[in-house]
């Protein structure tokens, strides 16, 4: 059996994608754990932004809120929402992490409603800063469980833009050129987006999963990379740091 759970694998895989000296906007939960892990392993110079104003904190523990005191603990600046969002809009922030109740083949995300907007079956919190990050950051990453209802053929509401209707539609809409969804990390696989169609494409399978598993848990047809990698298992050093110095109380990895 694996000596890690699937949440640990997702966090480690996400963490590995973050380059040293890059900049990132994160919220609470798994994305924050991935950023913290990266900072404590291969990316000590990763610069973390929180939308409410925290800049480059030395995170002591996982924040409960995107605006709590931990998000600017020993930071270089305690700023405000406009400054952070405008730093993203100017093009200084490389990565953001988002989630959502639904995602479609172009990486569009729904965190607003299931059903119609006028008479929703389920109301979710709404965009928060997600639309902003998805619009501005160069590379949007998504960590989400792989299931058919979530990976949907017809998204009920595009809260945050992915590649919209594919091709060059994102750039044509007026959103900044060269930005957009980059990787989707699920409990089964890692996907990117094919360059011209901008359709979601499997590029890596987690140990123990087959392409069929992923497709069976996806409501639309997935493209496949020419060569599909196996997602590296979490390194022992990653797991040790994740368990002892990132999430010792297992708030996040306890869910895996």
């Amino acid at each position, binding site marked *: 059996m694996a000596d890690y759970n699937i949440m640990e694998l997702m966090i480690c895989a996400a963490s590995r994608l973050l380059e040293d000296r890059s900049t990132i906007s994160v919220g*609470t939960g798994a994305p924050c754990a991935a950023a913290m892990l990266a900072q404590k392993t291969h990316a000590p110079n990763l610069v973390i932004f929180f939308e409410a104003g925290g800049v480059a904190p030395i995170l002591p523990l996982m924040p409960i*809120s995107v*605006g709590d*005191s*931990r998000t600017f603990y020993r930071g270089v600046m305690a700023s405000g929402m*406009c400054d952070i969002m405008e730093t993203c809009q100017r093009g200084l922030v490389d990565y953001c992490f988002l989630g959502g109740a639904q995602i479609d083949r172009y990486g569009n995300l729904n965190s607003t409603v299931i059903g119609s907007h006028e008479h929703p079956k389920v109301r979710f919190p709404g965009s928060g800063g*997600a639309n*902003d990050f998805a619009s501005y950051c160069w590379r949007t990453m998504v960590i989400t469980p792989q299931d058919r209802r979530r990976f949907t053929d017809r998204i009920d509401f595009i809260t945050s*833009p992915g590649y919209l209707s594919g091709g060059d539609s994102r750039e044509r809409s*007026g959103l900044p050129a060269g930005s957009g969804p980059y990787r989707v990390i699920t409990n089964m696989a890692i996907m990117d987006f094919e360059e011209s169609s901008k359709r979601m494409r499997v590029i890596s399978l987690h140990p123990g999963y087959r392409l069929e598993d992923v497709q069976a848990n996806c409501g639309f047809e997935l493209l496949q990379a020419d060569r599909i990698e196996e997602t590296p298992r979490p390194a022992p050093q990653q797991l040790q740091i994740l368990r002892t110095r990132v999430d010792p109380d297992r708030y996040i990895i306890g869910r895996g």
Partner: protein
Amino acid sequence: MDVLERGSGEFFATHDPEEARQFFLQKDKSLVAKVMTVKEAVERFVQDSDYIAIGGFGANRVPVAICHEILRQGRKNLGFLGHTSTHDFQILCAGEAIDRCDIAYIIGLEARGLSPNARRYMESGRVRVTENSNYTLSMRIKAAAMGVPFLVSRNLMGSDTFAKSASAVVTCPFTGHRVVLHPAIYPDVAAIHVHEADVYGNCRLRGITVSDLDLARAAKRLIITAERLLPAEEIRRDPSLTAIPYYLVDAVCEVPYGSYPGCMPYEYFSDEPHLREWLEAEEDPERLRAFLERTIYSVSDFSEYIERQGGIARMMELRRMELLIGQEGCQDG
């Protein structure tokens, strides 16, 4: 100005700088003491049907005493600016005080989960909504603070958040690119919790400012709750530290622990068990009624609420948690 696309969202507050100018012309800008109780501030400055905005972010540096008092005084049909609003929104929904809402983030309490009651309330059809993103609302506030009818950005476009917003897409006359314009929001009233204020309303705050510097300037009426009053002379000793000047302020209320059960940077951490208690009580409407009776309606003022929540002893625990940030558990040096 040719509009290429326009969101279908409603305007819930004034966006016209001319109307705001007429209001600000008659607003008293003189240096007079404005200290009063929370009860008096809400009586005088929050009216039924007002469009209201609450400072802070999530359950951090939020003027909770004002939200409680709005419930006690039974304000109804408020419009609400939902700019990552968590515990404050939860309280106002519990009081069924809102009938229209600019949404960026509501009903959630971030990592703590969703508010069952706020969700029911928002799914009941009793609240008209316009969608926004957090930055869109920041800009709508900033436009009002600047005294202009709109600001421009490059978000929202292509999304359904735009389709249900009050924003409009146009072609930039300088670059030829598509950009999106967001109409100003001048709230009728805003409440902001700060660390320190003098009796005139000059305010200092520490930590992240969120959108509060703009909100203070955008709001027609402004209620300040402060952890502490400060000698006016101290404000003049170092004007670089002033975040909100007195002439924007209508009421100054000294409310120690005023962001409780939320976090107040450098003062006290959030009371997570009490916030969980809220979420649990909300699961059942009957239980919620009893819970609200006990924590808000039968309470005379915020000090009594603090007493019922464990008083100074509990506050000291939360204070230690806040001041031990960085010293707890494992961490880097």
